[in-house]
């Protein structure tokens, strides 16, 4: 720090408190090291799980027909491990290091710190055990079942107490902007987690979302979008605002801009969730709201990015020499790219092409690999030498890591962009005669398999870079001595010695000197957007048009649906036919909001590695499904879907059926009273026998108490209610089909109207 700057700080900090002696205290480095090690370990686990997922997408046999590591179960393990274990621990590492130093105080409580650490690791381990077992809610980034959700709540409260407690006991009067981002993270994640975790248990590791269909989708993506905002973005922005000035040894470019960045970001972000559901059965007003606010997000996001990059003005020579700054620069650039691309994808016309394709996968990995990954590596390279009071073992190795990771990221995202655009265009391509150019979905899958292979190479390179970092950090640790506590000195902040001045800036100084007031205002800022979106959905039953022929699932279908959830089929198959001619031609009638009123949870999905299944019912005979699930390539040569042999051998568990029916009845599914005590089992048996008889006509002898029978029952039910429907009751369908002209200039609505 420059002498002038140092004197400036000294004057500000000490002038109101000249009569108070400086205190000596110690920063806790042990907790920082624990989170740092956990970050590295879980990062490797999460990324390796991702690589195994990637390999299975061009070599489905890589699961060895072992159900616990099959793509559908492994994918949520990958996403949870990378988000909550890698980035989560990385975030806590950064917060515990920087918060103490910004507050000039040790963490509020060592006990709470360690409770937080071990509690978080226990949650991660329980996720790593339950997700491969298929114990999942199926809601993306919120898959963990209810006992683990409760544990998350308890541990998060502990973290928040530690955070706020430290801030309240600080010796530095002013709260630097990084702390604002940390406060917003702690509180908003709590609100999101509680709102999206409203479930009704139907056993120790089985629950149903209290919301159904459209409401469930809206709440889920309000959560999902803001989990990206407040788990993957705001804490890392706080870390950027702390570690970048430290590394560059110069203050942030514009503190004024950082203030605007913070308030604008937390206020706008929360409104944009519905952009995940464009052209679905979500009401149009919510879709438009999401799109407009997504576009507005570019302003604060780019303000933050520019603030970061401009901090390095006049210091770019340091970037050449310092790998930590190299990682930081790429991280901030990736943040800028991802936050420009996100709003672009939220434009409805772009989204109509990109949604359900690998374009989304490329987008999220620009953020995950670039922003979160590179920033975490940067902070690790910064912290380790300081924790061990030494120098980094090898700058050269860190540089190798940088280039390998950058190359890996490019090999990941570029093929995924190519794959995404290819899929999007092929799905929509019509011949001159007005027929789908690629009516067999498999043609569009086979086309992009080479891109999946390149993606796996990218992932391998990225992980190789992490191993280089592990070695480098290990040697760094070995070359130094761990500094468990760092001694520090500061003049304590006493309110009576520091009256708030009056002047044009007094409001802000008053506000950020009062953490609790600040906290309440931050929560208000995020709640306003949330309320505008969510409240109408809660209040307006009529928002979802009722369709009289839509009935609850039969007991066998219900169990089949639960197996569909267990296997993570939703990871590759959507259940939402959008109102485009290209989709109604391929799949059938577009999906209506009223068709999902008994769907706890909704299973619309967000990716089509395989085709949409909402109109799957009745398309193929039962025997086709049996053969297809046993070995997809027997019916669909070239398919990349895994085999599901265990569905043929595992006995269907019907003992939990009464609890499941009772739970669903409690949240509004109209199963008659007493249905679970006898009639349900009888119904289940009759339907099973019918399917077994159908299979016999296809020369398949099957046992009626196997899981595959329930899955077939569910698949054959999908989207069929409306086919038997009388005209849709008022009010009319939620969304109107979009006018998508075919090659003869005909409006797609003609097709859908005729289908009615």
């Amino acid at each position, binding site marked *: 720090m420059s002498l002038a700057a140092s004197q400036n700080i000294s004057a500000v900090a000490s002038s109101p408190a000249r009569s108070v002696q400086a205190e000596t205290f110690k920063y806790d480095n042990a907790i920082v090291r624990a989170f740092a090690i956990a970050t590295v370990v879980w990062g490797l686990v999460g990324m390796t799980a991702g690589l195994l997922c990637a390999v299975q997408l061009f070599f489905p046999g890589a699961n060895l027909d072992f159900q616990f590591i099959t793509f559908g179960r492994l994918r949520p393990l990958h996403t949870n491990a990378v988000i909550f274990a890698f980035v989560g621990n990385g975030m806590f590492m950064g917060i515990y290091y920087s918060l103490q130093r910004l507050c*000039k105080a040790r963490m509020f409580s060592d006990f709470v710190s360690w409770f937080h650490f071990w509690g978080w690791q226990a949650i991660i381990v329980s996720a790593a055990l339950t997700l491969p077992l298929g114990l999942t809610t199926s809601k993306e980034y919120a898959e963990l079942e209810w006992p683990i959700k409760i544990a998350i709540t308890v541990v998060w409260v502990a973290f928040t107490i530690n955070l706020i407690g430290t801030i309240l006991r600080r010796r530095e009067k002013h709260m630097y902007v990084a702390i604002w981002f940390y406060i917003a993270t702690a509180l908003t994640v709590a609100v999101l987690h509680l709102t999206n975790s409203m479930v009704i248990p139907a056993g120790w590791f089985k629950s149903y979302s209290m919301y159904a269909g459209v409401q469930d989708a809206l709440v889920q993506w309000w959560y999902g979008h803001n989990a990206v905002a407040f788990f993957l973005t705001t804490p890392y922005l706080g870390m950027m605002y702390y570690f970048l000035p430290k590394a560059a040894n110069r203050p942030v470019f514009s*503190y004024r801009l950082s203030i605007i960045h913070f308030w604008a970001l937390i206020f706008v972000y929360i409104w944009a969730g519905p952009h995940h559901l464009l052209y679905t059965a979500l009401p149009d007003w919510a879709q438009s709201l999401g799109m407009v606010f997504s576009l507005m997000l570019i302003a604060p996001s780019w303000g933050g990015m520019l603030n970061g990059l401009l901090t390095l003005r006049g210091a770019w020579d340091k970037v050449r020499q310092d790998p930590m700054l190299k990682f930081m620069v790429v991280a901030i650039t990736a943040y800028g790219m991802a936050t420009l691309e996100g709003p672009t994808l939220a434009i409805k016309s772009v989204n109509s092409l990109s949604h359900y394709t690998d374009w989304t996968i490329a987008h999220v990995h620009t953020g995950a690999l670039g922003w979160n990954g590179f920033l975490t590596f940067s902070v690790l390279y910064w912290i380790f030498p300081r924790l061990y009071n030494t120098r980094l073992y090898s700058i050269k190795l860190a540089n190798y890591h940088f280039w390998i990771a950058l190359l890996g990221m490019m090999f990941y995202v570029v093929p995924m962009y190519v794959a995404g655009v290819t899929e999007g265009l092929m799905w929509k391509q019509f011949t001159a005669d007005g027929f789908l150019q690629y009516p067999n979905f498999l043609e569009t899958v086979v086309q992009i398999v080479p891109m999946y292979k390149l993606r796996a190479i990218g992932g391998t390179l990225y992980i190789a870079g992490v191993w280089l970092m592990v070695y480098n950090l290990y040697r760094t640790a070995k070359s130094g001595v761990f500094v468990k506590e760092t001694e520090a000195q500061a003049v304590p902040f006493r309110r009576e010695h520091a009256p708030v001045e009056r002047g044009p800036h007094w409001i802000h100084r008053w506000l950020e000197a009062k953490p609790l007031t600040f906290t309440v205002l931050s929560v208000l800022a995020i709640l306003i957007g949330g309320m505008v979106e969510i409240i109408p959905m809660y209040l307006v039953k009529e*928002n979802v048009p009722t369709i009289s022929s839509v009935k609850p699932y039969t007991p066998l279908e219900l169990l089949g649906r639960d197996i569909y959830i267990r296997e993570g089929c939703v990871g590759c198959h959507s259940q939402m036919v959008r109102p485009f001619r290209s989709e109604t031609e391929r799949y059938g009638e577009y999906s209506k909001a009223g068709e999902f009123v008994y769907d706890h949870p909704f299973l619309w999905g967000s990716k089509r590695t395989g085709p949409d299944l909402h109109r799957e019912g009745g398309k193929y005979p039962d025997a086709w499904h049996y053969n297809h699930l046993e070995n997809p390539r027997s019916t669909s040569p070239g398919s990349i879907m895994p085999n599901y042999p265990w569905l043929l051998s595992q006995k269907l568990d019907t003992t939990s059926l009464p609890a499941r029916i009772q739970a669903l009845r409690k949240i509004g599914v109209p199963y008659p009273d007493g249905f679970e005590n006898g009639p349900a089992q009888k119904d289940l048996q009759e339907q099973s026998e019918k399917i077994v008889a159908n299979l016999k006509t296809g020369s398949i002898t099957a046992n009626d108490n196997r899981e595959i029978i329930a899955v077939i029952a569910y698949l054959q039910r999908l989207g069929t209610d409306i086919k038997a429907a009388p005209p849709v009751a008022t009010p009319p369908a939620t969304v109107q089909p979009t006018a998508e002209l075919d090659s003869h200039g005909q409006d797609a609505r003609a097709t859908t109207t005729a289908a009615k």
Partner: protein
Amino acid sequence: MIEHVLHHLNGIEVFGIISVCLFFGFFTAMLLWASRLKKTYLNSMQELPLDSGEKNSNQDSHE
């Protein structure tokens, strides 16, 4: 669709107007407020991360 939603929620017209007012009010106030902050105050704030109060060491400088 928006008409349908509005039609079925009592007082929703006020809800929308309040949202817009809150939104623009919030941003106008924030921009005015940020633009009036004193330079000396901003300078002192942005120096905060560079002083960690640590007694010894290379911790505030990067190799």
